[in-house]
């Protein structure tokens, strides 16, 4: 006997949409096994993971707070993947966005007036774009693949942030702690509800959902991206430029990730710190695929992934589980999702090695 994967003639649409649900279901079972193996009560842990974060208004606003950067980054990643441009360095563009925006906020200081916040946000977007542009240049000029370049640039960005908060932008009155001064109130995003940390950034992210859907499904630009992604030969025949689509996707996803970064430091954090992201840029890759690369799907996926972050924190507090447990669960979701997708596209055949016809 041997196993063989055979391509299905017509993959089922229903299965394509169901596979994220199946993936979350199987990953939940996997999580329960993991909890049991760690000597915890699986049901109590699952309750802590999925339900406890949602039992208060504060919990729900925290969910929106965590979902916002995921959503912004994942939308950009998804547009790219549809065009076969793989920006997996949203984490780096997020970080550079935070640095660039943060530098502007600190430079304009307390007496910049109303223009401080818009300039801060624009600097954040520009920072993310500039970081992604490095990958675009290397890809279009030297054919260096963006998967590697964007990923490696993420680590460069994180190191850069570490140096900046210990060097040029260190708070002079901060007792040598590696952090910048607090941003002035004029550089901070307004919150949506008094007492909650959720800011108007959540509205930006929400507005990006229909905007991305419009781009992909209704505009000529989105059509070109999809053709370049699906059939590069057809794009050449039609005269759609591949390098234009690489530039567009990297600048768009870099800009969105940069916006997410500056919204994080000009929002709940309020200053530059050596660590400003619990891996939002990487989790956004999972978010994009979990949402089937479709904007509305990504909205739901970002809420689920945000819930995992909150639940993971709760698990650390109430069950004394390590943070890595959250990462394992995230990884399981992606793994099972990819597996489910394989079976949506292919069927498993058991073939006898010898067959008498």
């Amino acid at each position, binding site marked *: 006997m041997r196993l063989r994967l055979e391509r299905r003639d017509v993959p089922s649409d229903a299965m394509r949409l169901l596979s994220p649900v199946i993936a979350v279901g199987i990953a939940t079972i996997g999580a329960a096994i993991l909890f049991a193996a760690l000597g915890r009560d699986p049901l109590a842990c699952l309750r802590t993971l999925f339900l406890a974060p949602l039992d208060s208004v504060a919990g729900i606003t925290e969910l929106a707070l965590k979902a916002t950067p995921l959503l912004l980054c994942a939308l950009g990643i998804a547009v790219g993947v549809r065009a076969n441009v793989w920006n997996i360095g949203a984490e780096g563009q997020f970080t550079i966005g935070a640095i660039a925006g943060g530098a502007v906020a600190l430079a304009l200081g307390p007496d910049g007036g109303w223009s401080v916040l818009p300039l801060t946000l624009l600097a954040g977007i520009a920072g993310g774009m500039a970081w992604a542009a490095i990958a675009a240049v290397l890809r279009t000029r030297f054919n260096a693949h963006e998967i590697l370049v964007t990923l490696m640039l993420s680590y460069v960005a994180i190191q850069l942030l570490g140096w900046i908060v210990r060097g040029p932008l260190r708070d002079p009155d901060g007792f040598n702690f590696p952090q910048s001064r607090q941003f002035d109130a004029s550089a901070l995003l307004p919150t949506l509800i008094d007492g909650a940390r959720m800011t108007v950034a959540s509205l930006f992210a929400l507005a990006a959902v229909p905007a991305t859907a419009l781009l992909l499904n209704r*505009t*000529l630009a989105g*059509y070109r991206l999809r053709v370049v992604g*699906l059939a590069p030969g*057809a794009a*050449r*025949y*039609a*005269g759609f430029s591949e390098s234009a689509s690489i530039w567009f996707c990297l600048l768009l996803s870099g800009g969105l990730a940069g916006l997410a970064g500056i919204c994080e430091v000009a929002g709940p954090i309020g200053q530059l710190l050596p660590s400003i992201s619990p891996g939002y840029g990487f989790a956004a890759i999972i978010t994009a695929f979990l949402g089937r690369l479709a904007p509305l799907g990504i909205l739901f996926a970002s809420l689920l992934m945000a819930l995992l972050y909150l639940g993971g924190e709760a698990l650390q507090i109430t069950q004394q589980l390590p943070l890595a447990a959250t990462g394992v669960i995230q990884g399981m979701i992606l793994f099972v999702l990819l597996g489910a997708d394989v079976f949506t596209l292919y069927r498993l055949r058991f073939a006898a090695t010898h067959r008498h*016809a």
Partner: protein
Amino acid sequence: MAALPRLDLRGIAKTYGTTRANAGIDLTVMPGEIHALLGENGAGKSTLVKIIYGVVQPDAGEISWEGRGVAIPDPNAARALGIGMVFQHFSLFETLTVTENIALGLNATEPLPALAARIAATAARYGLAVDPARHVHHLSVGERQRVEILRCLLQQPRLLIMDEPTSVLTPQEVEGLFAMLRRLAAEGCSILYISHKLAEIQALCDRATVLRAGRVTGECEPRTTSPAAMAEMMVGRAVGQPDRPPRPAPGAAVLEARALTLPAADPFGTALNAIDLTLRAGEILGIAGVAGNGQKELLAALTGERLAPVNAMIALAGQPCGRQGTAARRRAGLAAIPEERLGRGAVAELSLTENALLTGTDGPNVRHGLVRFAALRRFAAGVISAFRVVAASPEASAASLSGGNMQKFIIGREVGHEPRVLIAAHPTWGVDVGAALAIHQSLLDLAAAGMAILIVSEDLEELFLLCDRIAVLHAGRLSAPTAVADTTIDAVGLLMGGLHDAIAA
């Protein structure tokens, strides 16, 4: 004494998903017989020979080899029985020599010099001119095919399967191939010859089995059966010829190439060398040639996928455009039908409506950067009805259409943009006879209506049927075009083989 059949198939069946590729096929090949397997694309010929060669396992049916039942689980088993196959697409390493390539295929431990001597001896015996020491990337397509054939012959096959072998050969090379096959058959080797070219089968084969839609629809002796009768077995109904509507006198030159020279894009490509070409309104100009002689490069240069080094090298309606890309040339009235339908002429995953936008981004389909899907759907529906495309709806995906219907849709889409010049690469390649007739008819009608049409094809019969003038591309150079009435298939064949300079001198 009645000889045992070399190969006897009974009730072979194979189903892919919902498609019955083979539905109970019987086939008998006698020793020393040249047996034709005849059928349109999609009739099940490829599946059947893949079953014989062990590439594909049948769902049902029996295979007998020289009187005993056998299973052929893989190509190694087929070769062990004495079955050799020359595929349509060669599997040779460009950077290795002929001997090295053949050694790889044989899995033998024979030293290379000894093998080279055997290759040379076998080549000489069958009149296959190949130098064992040459690198494959220096070889023409015809020579590469000889390497593939030699690889089979060295294993002393008793059944040789040839899959559409002549599509890459000049008429003279075809004659050489046939002489070799006849000699092989006289020595007792059976040959299963797959083709849809009736004239070849009449010239070569002793018997023919005709397939249609996965079933055997007839057996005949090709030498005594009329081509019309064989075509009818193949297609299921009588096949007509396209009408030739009267042509206007050729009008102004609408597409011109002047000393078009373009270096090869990759090490195995062909450079274009000083190509001159004039295409007038209301005429069909054919470009013949063996694949790999610069057709891809010429098409890319004319459509704008590759820019010419000098703007004046190409002109559309008198305006130089060599430095303009595809979109600008399309606006100037150029339309192109590429060789590959899915992945180039259309995107398999997208609907016909969405595919209509591929080359229609300038017209009323887009406003303020937004796609007007209603207008696009009307356009797609218009193409579907005007060109009798068999499709569920404009929302059907391109992948769901048959090759012929997709080609009709692509031609209809390009014609729907009302171009002045239409460039068609292999317009009926892999298309069933009915669709090919419809495509030929619409090309003739368009030319009669004043469109200038350039057809690049390897199918000489098609070119002689459609074209007013024919030029031949060989090694990146284009011969002077001659009127179809003043030339013959043989004369064009000599040019395809590279006698360009001899004739010019």
